[in-house]
C-alpha cells in the first residue's frame, strides 16, 4: 500500500483547491457547489468549510447529488441510491461538481446527465482531489485537481476520510 497524500498534504491540498475556487470566482455567491455521493460529499464538506472561513459574510450554495439512477451499468449490478439534495435553482449559475477520485469519467458523465434535470447552468466545472490520469474512458478532464497520479486499472485509489489520507493499493 502506497500513501499518495498524508494528513498534512491532504489538508494543504484542500486549502489550495478552495483558494483556487475563490480566485476563479470572485462572485462566489453565484456559484453552486455540488458534491457527488458518496465520496465527493466528504471533500465538498471540507471545501465548503474553508470557503466559509474565507468569505465570512457571503452565502455559499451547496448541494448533494446522487447519480445511481443515471448509471450506465445498471444492468450489471444495482447500487444503493443515496440522498440528493439541491435546495436551490441551478439555472444560469456556475456549477462546480466535486468528487474525490476521477477515474474512468463515467460518474461525471452520469452527473452531467443528472444536472440537466435540475436546470440549465451557465457553466459546469469539475473539481477532484485525485485525478487518475490516463485511465479515462470518456473525454472528461478536471478544472481543479488536487493531485494527478499514474495508476493502472487493476489498482485502487482510496481516500480514507477517517484517517485523513489517500492510499493506492
Amino acid at each position, binding site marked *: 500500500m502506497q500513501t499518495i497524500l498524508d494528513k498534512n498534504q491532504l489538508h494543504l491540498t484542500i486549502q489550495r483547491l478552495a483558494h483556487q475556487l475563490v480566485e476563479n470566482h470572485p462572485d462566489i455567491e453565484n456559484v453552486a457547489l455540488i458534491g457527488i455521493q458518496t465520496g465527493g460529499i466528504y471533500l465538498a464538506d471540507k471545501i465548503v468549510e474553508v470557503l466559509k472561513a474565507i468569505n465570512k459574510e457571503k452565502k455559499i450554495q451547496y448541494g448533494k447529488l446522487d447519480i445511481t*439512477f*443515471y448509471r450506465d451499468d*445498471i444492468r450489471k449490478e444495482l447500487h444503493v*441510491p443515496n440522498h440528493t439534495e439541491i435546495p436551490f435553482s441551478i439555472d444560469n449559475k456556475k456549477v462546480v461538481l466535486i468528487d474525490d477520485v476521477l477515474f474512468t469519467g463515467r460518474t461525471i458523465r452520469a452527473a452531467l446527465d443528472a444536472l440537466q434535470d435540475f436546470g440549465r447552468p451557465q457553466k459546469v466545472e469539475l473539481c477532484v482531489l485525485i485525478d487518475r490520469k490516463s485511465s479515462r474512458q470518456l473525454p472528461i478532464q478536471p478544472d481543479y485537481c488536487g493531485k494527478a497520479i499514474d495508476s493502472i486499472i487493476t489498482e485502487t485509489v482510496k481516500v480514507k476520510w477517517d484517517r485523513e489520507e489517500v492510499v493506492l493499493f
Partner: protein
Amino acid sequence: MQLSTKHLLGIKDLQRSDIESILTTAKQFKEVLQRPIKKVPSLRDTTIVNLFYESSTRTRISFELAEKRLSADTINFSSSGSSIAKGETLLDTVNNILSMKVDMVVMRHSASGAPHFLAQHIPAAIINAGDGINEHPTQALLDGFSIREKSGTLEGKKVVLIGDIMHSRVALSNIYLLKKMGAEVMVAGPPTLIPKYITEALDVHVEYNLKKALQWCDVANVLRIQLERQNQVLFSSLREYNLAYGVSKKLLDSLNKEIIIMHPGPINRGVEIDSDVADSNQSIILQQVENGVAIRMAVLYLLSEKSQ
C-alpha cells in the same frame, strides 16, 4: 440491495430486508418526483406491459406514471376490447405479448393466484397489482411507507384495519407487511366480514366495537366496502354499516388522542368514512396516492435487473 425474489407476487414471499430496500429506495425516488424534471433514465431499455383484467384508476395510473418516470416503454392492455372476448387463455395472451420482447408484466386479475400461475410459466418479471381477494403488495408497501413517513417508524405502531377484511386484498397484504416490520395489527368490522380463524392464522387482534378499536390504535386504515364483491348479504344496509362502522368526525373527537386516518381508495363517502374525516388534517389519503408512484418506481427499479 438486491431483492430475494424475481417477482413481486405478494408481501407474504418477501423478507423484511426486501421491504426495507423497497422503502429506502422509494424515499430517493420521492425526491426525484420533486425535481423540475421528474424523470430518470434508469429503465430506458426496459419494456413493461400493464395487464389490467379488472378495473382500476389509481393503481393503473400510478404504475403507468412510475414506468414513465423511469423512462421505460409501456404498453397498456385492458380486458375489454381485447382478444379475451374471443376466448384466448391468460397464458396465451401473455406469451403472445412477451414474444414481442416485453421485459416485465404488471398484472391485476380478479382470480386470486393468477400472477403466481403466470410466474411459473413465463420468464418475465411479474408484479402483482392486485389478484382477487389475495394480495395487493404495492398498496401495502405504500401504506407502510406513508405511516413511516408520517410517524417515523413502523416498529411497535398499533394499526387497525377497519371494514371488509374478508374480501380485502389490501388488508391481507397490509397484515403481512405490518407484522414483518414489527407493528401490532388489529382488524375491526362486523363479524360477517372478518374471517373466523384470523387470529390463529395471522396473529392479529380482532375487535367488533369500532370505538374500542380506534381508542387502541395509532393508525386507522379504513377499507372500502366492496360493493362489487357482495353477492350474499353480509350486513343489512349501507346505512346501518355507516352507523356501526363508519368513521365519523364525532367519533374521532371523542377519543383522547389524534390518530392517523388512511384509506386505499376509492372512497365510499358516507359509508365507511365520512367526508369531513376524509378531508381532515388527520387523513393522509392523498399522501398515500402520492407515495404510490415512488413505491412503484422502487419496485420496478429493483426488479428490473432480474428481468433481463
